[in-house]
């Protein structure tokens, strides 16, 4: 055997540089992305513990304040709605619901999209044709008319709403994952694993998927933004989470009839939707730059 080891080998003292360590290092250099991430973390904390700290529950009604939206005050920081409920408590509780639906919907979209795209791109041929035409059909369905039609038929429970949100937004991820798989399956390290006798699922999930995780993470992050927007739109139109359970969407809906008299009811949920989606998009862009550096 060759006895001398190769000169100029790696420095044994330095820790192995894992992929994620390098990603984190690059991510922290993106200011907007870090701000976005910080905003989302703070928002997450606020909607989690905020409703617990509030003296009111989200459906507690102060009957003295019934009939007209109440102004901002020491007792009700963001005022009350026309039913005498505390607006801040409802806003935070609504944030829980909106974020939860957004995250869960995006997760479903991520899983469905990844599976469809992975099978399509890996096996190609007939499975690819069938799955991609199905994806095209799903993309061609106009979302809001469909939802309005459905809303005439039934009111969804929260799990069903999550499923609907997921089913309406998985297609972009599927296409992206498919293109990643198509490219990566031809790479030599995949062929090397095939030459060693690795099975199809092993090639897909052990070799190809980890190398596509960057784009998938980015797409899933951006999908959280779409899911929150979609949930808000659905709830705003009345086809979403039903009152008295608040979400940012239905808060906007009920506040819209008081827009001129009590703008303080509509502005906070509107701004939170705006800033949350913005922060999610900044985060996604930052992750893209950190995970797929063009160096």
């Amino acid at each position, binding site marked *: *055997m*060759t006895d*001398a*080891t*190769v000169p*100029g*080998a*790696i420095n*044994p003292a330095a820790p*192995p*540089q*894992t*992929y994620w360590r390098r990603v984190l290092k690059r991510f922290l250099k993106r200011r907007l992305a870090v701000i976005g991430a910080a905003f989302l973390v703070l928002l997450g904390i606020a909607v989690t513990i905020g409703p617990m700290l509030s003296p009111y529950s989200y459906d507690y009604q102060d009957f003295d304040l019934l009939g007209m939206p109440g102004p901002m005050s020491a007792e009700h920081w963001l005022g009350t709605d026309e039913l005498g409920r505390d607006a801040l408590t409802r806003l935070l509780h609504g944030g829980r619901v909106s974020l939860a639906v957004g995250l869960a919907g995006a997760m479903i979209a991520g899983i469905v999209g990844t599976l469809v795209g992975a099978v399509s791109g890996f096996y190609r041929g007939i499975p690819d044709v069938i799955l991609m035409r199905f994806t095209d059909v799903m993309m061609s369905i106009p979302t809001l008319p469909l939802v309005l039609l459905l809303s005439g038929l039934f009111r969804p429970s929260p799990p069903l709403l999550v499923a609907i949100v997921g089913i309406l937004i998985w297609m972009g991820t599927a296409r992206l994952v498919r293109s990643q798989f198509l490219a990566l399956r031809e*790479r*030599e*390290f995949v*062929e*090397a*694993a*095939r*030459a*060693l*006798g*690795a099975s199809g699922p092993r090639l897909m999930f*052990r*070799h190809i998927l*980890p*190398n596509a*995780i960057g784009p998938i993470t980015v797409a899933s992050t951006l999908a959280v933004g779409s899911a929150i927007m979609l949930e808000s739109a659905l709830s705003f139109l009345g086809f979403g989470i039903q009152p008295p359970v608040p979400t940012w969407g239905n808060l906007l809906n009920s506040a819209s009839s008081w827009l001129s008299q009590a703008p303080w009811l509509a502005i906070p949920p509107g701004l939170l939707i705006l800033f949350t989606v913005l922060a999610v998009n900044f985060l996604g862009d930052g992750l893209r730059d950190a995970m797929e550096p063009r160096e």
Partner: protein
Amino acid sequence: MAEPLLVVDDLKVHYPLGKTLFKPGVTLKALDGVSFTVGRGEVVGLVGESGSGKTTLGRAVLRLVEPTAGKVHLDGKDVTALPPAELKSLRSRMQIIFQDPYASLNPRMSVGQTLGEALMLHRIGTRKDRDQRIGDLLEKVGLPRTAAARFPHEFSGGQRQRIGIARALAVNPEFIVADEPVSALDVSIQAQIINLLQDLRKDLGLSLLFIGHDLSVIEFLCDRVIVLYLGRVMEMGTAAGLYAKPRHPYTRALLDAAPVPDPTIRRERITLKGDLPSPVSPPSGCVFRTRCPYAIERCAQVVPPLEEAANGHRVACIQSHELDLSNPLA
């Protein structure tokens, strides 16, 4: 040598192109009837221009590309007809080393994981002694044992190629396809890798199908050489015989194209003009005739059979008896 380890018989790889519901499409013949053997412990070189089908041949022998027709036998077992489970166990006996050391290692797996996967897939050793084996493999290819914890991007090209070789060796193969294993490396590193392959070959008794286009490397390493053009064998013979007395104009042209490290030598050369014809519509008769300086009318009419020209030396050229293509430098 008794029974050869690898027997390739009339191997064809054809790709249908442009076939849709509405039109029939055409056929790209990447490999069109290639036959050869590799003996135990023998190193066979495979040369030819880009697009000649070298890589496809290497892949098809290992059934990484499905052959359209023909047979490949490894130690008597029909590689082309095995069901998946048996093919998997046979894969531990035949391995591949790739050209591009940057593309051939999974960037998300540490070196130890990459080598460990090979061991795991073929149930070599227990979970406990695999680390030991991984360390031994790394030392065998001249890397420190600590390399196991590292990721591919922490290594240079030459080091990565050593890792690729270690992965191929992990399952104790008898036969390895080396697909241009040094073409992507610096010249100084090339020599190291070639010496490593030479050592391993001696120590482990490996049989190699060495694909390359650097003829001096092929001459140094190989016992026999196969010359491929447009998916067909033009000539094959012992390295010494083929280099001293090429019998096919294409072989001579390849030899002439190799640089000679002495600028004072003047020689008559066959220079290839133009590019490889399209494998979708190859020339009639001899596929090389469109670029052959000796082509005559009959070359367009008959497909030259691969005929024995001397002991163990076969050539596919109808004029091989009339032409003297001896290499004046050899």
